[in-house]
């Protein structure tokens, strides 16, 4: 190979390396969500207005949960995420492992307006979501509770549930008549877990397991399942697109997702600004009006269009008989219960 040819070959590589190293210095603020219709709503309500106001670009990424990438970034000291949406479970675990910045609640703007239940050491509540029983009233009219989900005689057909122990065991116990306030007490015993699995056994051949939040709504639309558990926002988004699915608010299971800041980001100030913006009343009002998830800022609730209020998980009439997911319970027991669940599913 002649020198000139070598030079010609190397030039693009050197050039690419220069670009790569240059861009890593001038990294823009990066926010990471769970994608789909949820992130579309965040873009409209939060990301675009914030970027316009700050006069700086905002990079978006999406992921499907899990704290492995966060841990890998932390260990290799190349943190490229600045603000991250997390579920409560994973936030708690990541916080314990020192992967997240701690929030100083004294210095936090909006601190007085945020619901006290969603002020965590390493995160602030982003929104309240709910898992509901969804069905097509044209095909299966009259469904009223999780117990009806088990009634294969009256409503034959496949059922959709998420392929994980968390929430599925709760649904089984709710269907078996356990009261929401006694649920985790029951699930904390071996007999309670056996009872949940025995209940699931009754409809096991008719369950179709979903893994991503978009699947249950697609399956319901395609007729693969006649009823399913689903996130309320996804069902609402499908209804906006012309579907007419019914959501069952009684016995809804709800929890919050959080905004967190990965430890080691070099954009801490900007990241805090963004989180403060996303927990402000005006921004949350826009968010809830785009996708009907519950807000975490008390003042935002009052601002939201009254027409939308009944669609929110946090509306008083929707909270009757609702079950709040017990995160500390799952943080302690998920390893064991998930393994038993995986085995049971594969049998």
């Amino acid at each position: 190979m002649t020198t000139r040819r070598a030079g010609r070959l190397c030039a693009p590589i050197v050039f690419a390396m220069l670009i790569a190293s240059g861009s890593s210095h001038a990294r823009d603020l990066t926010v990471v969500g769970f994608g789909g219709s949820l992130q579309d709503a965040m873009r409209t309500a939060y990301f675009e207005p914030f970027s316009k106001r700050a006069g700086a670009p905002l990079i978006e990424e999406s992921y499907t949960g899990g704290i492995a990438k966060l841990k890998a970034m932390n260990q290799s000291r190349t943190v490229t995420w600045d603000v991250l949406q997390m579920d409560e479970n994973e936030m708690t675990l990541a916080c314990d492992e020192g992967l997240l910045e701690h929030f100083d609640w004294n210095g936090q703007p909006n601190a007085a307006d945020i619901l006290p239940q969603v002020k965590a050491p390493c995160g602030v509540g982003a929104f309240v979501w709910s898992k509901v029983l969804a069905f097509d009233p044209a095909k299966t009219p009259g469904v009223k509770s999780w117990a009806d989900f088990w009634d294969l005689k009256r409503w034959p057909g496949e059922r959709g549930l998420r392929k994980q122990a968390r929430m599925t065991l709760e649904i089984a116990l709710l269907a078996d008549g356990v009261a929401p306030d006694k649920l985790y007490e029951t699930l904390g015993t071996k007999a309670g877990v056996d009872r949940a699995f025995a209940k699931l056994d009754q409809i096991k051949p008719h369950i179709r397991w979903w893994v991503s939040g978009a699947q249950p709504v697609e399956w319901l639309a395609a007729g693969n399942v006649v009823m399913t558990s689903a996130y309320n926002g996804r069902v609402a988004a499908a209804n906006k697109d012309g579907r007419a699915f019914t959501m069952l608010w009684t016995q809804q299971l709800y929890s919050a997702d959080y905004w967190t800041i990965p430890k080691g980001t070099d954009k801490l100030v900007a990241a805090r600004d963004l989180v403060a913006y996303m927990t402000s009343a005006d921004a949350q009002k826009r968010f809830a009006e785009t996708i009907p998830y519950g807000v975490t800022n008390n003042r935002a609730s009052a601002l939201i269009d009254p027409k939308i209020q009944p669609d929110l998980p946090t509306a008083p009439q929707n909270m009757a008989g609702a079950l709040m997911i017990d995160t500390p319970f799952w943080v302690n027991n998920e390893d064991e219960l998930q393994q038993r669940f995986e085995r049971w599913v594969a049998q």
Partner: protein
Amino acid sequence: MTRMASTTETMAGTSALAPPSLSSRAKARMVSVLLIAPLVLFLTLVFVLPLGGMLFHAVENGEVGGALPGVAAEMRGWTGEGLPPEAAYAALARDLKAAYGEPRLGEASRRLNYERAGYRALLAKTARAVRAIDRPQAGWTAELTAIDARWGEPATWAALRRASPSLTPYYLLTALDLRMDDGGAILRAPAEERIYIDTLGRTLWIGFVTTLLCLVLGFPLAHALVSLPRGFASVLMVCVLLPFWTSLLVRTSAWIVVLQKEGVLNGLLTRLGIVDAPLELVFNRFGLYVAMVHILLPFMILPILSVMKGISPSYMRASASLGAHPAVGFLKVYLPMTLPGVGAGCLMTFIIGVGYYITPSLVGGARDQMTSYFIAYYANTTINWGLSSALGAILLACIMLLYATVGRLIGVGRIAGIQ
């Protein structure tokens, strides 16, 4: 593969033609060592080291020793019977005070929670409570037991003792559905928690069936590709390669569209009156095989094709002219010559096939999940990297064993195409 074959041939050829002198041979060897040095370095950096690191994760156990060094040392000196001495309780209290709020305590909690559910909350609660105690009134044994009665249970301490050494068999045992009980004996896991051996068996079986189906479909297709007229063969070749150039997710999702209950195929079958009710074609083993065979077929066809291209048609003509029936000629003359390609294709299809997890999770049913699903689950979702590595190591060991067996039966050289 073909390149490897030709290099060996040329090297063997030159040495047979003119045996070089000793010094020039040494020099040549030196040059070749220098030439492959970058390759060796590259392989070490990107292959041997990461793989070794991954395998080491399967036995690495530094979490408890790192966060609670004092009590970990006490556990080494303790017999493991009943409850440990006061010194162990005192060391635990000291360690918890020092590690309070530190990430390393979180890591140790995660590790201990694998041994015994609830340990995470127990440590958090105890660490918070001991900070308030400067001087224990009645000794740390009494204080800790007062904070939580579990500190008075031998099982709590047995779990701590098992998790304390710097290396552990825990992950490998778990990956084989085994447990170490409080006395240190190895037992099978409780029936409702046995899962990985079944999954491994299923993984190997799915890999085997997929390979067989690919062979049955791929062999005639490869033969057609070498014997058909050129224009037609190249169109067929594009059809074979097209899946290669399409994203895995797109291909898999396309099968869902085709095979689902209200999908293209069922619609066609019902309209033609062939079936009354739509068939269950996807979200089960059938759908999985269809999607996997479609994706893996090129890996079977290409090695067979490259071998078939090198087989001159005159062999078959010669066997016919010597009076052999075409079937006999095929079995005795043609088939043995294609075996290296078949071996390479089967091995490649099988090895790639057993690593699948996205396809089974999309088009398979609940009973069709493979080992890699758990590897990805533990690596990405729960950061249980130890169990993830242990499962990976066991899958790797199975593949190596299979490779060695096939290698012994057919000969590694023949599979690799260098003989």
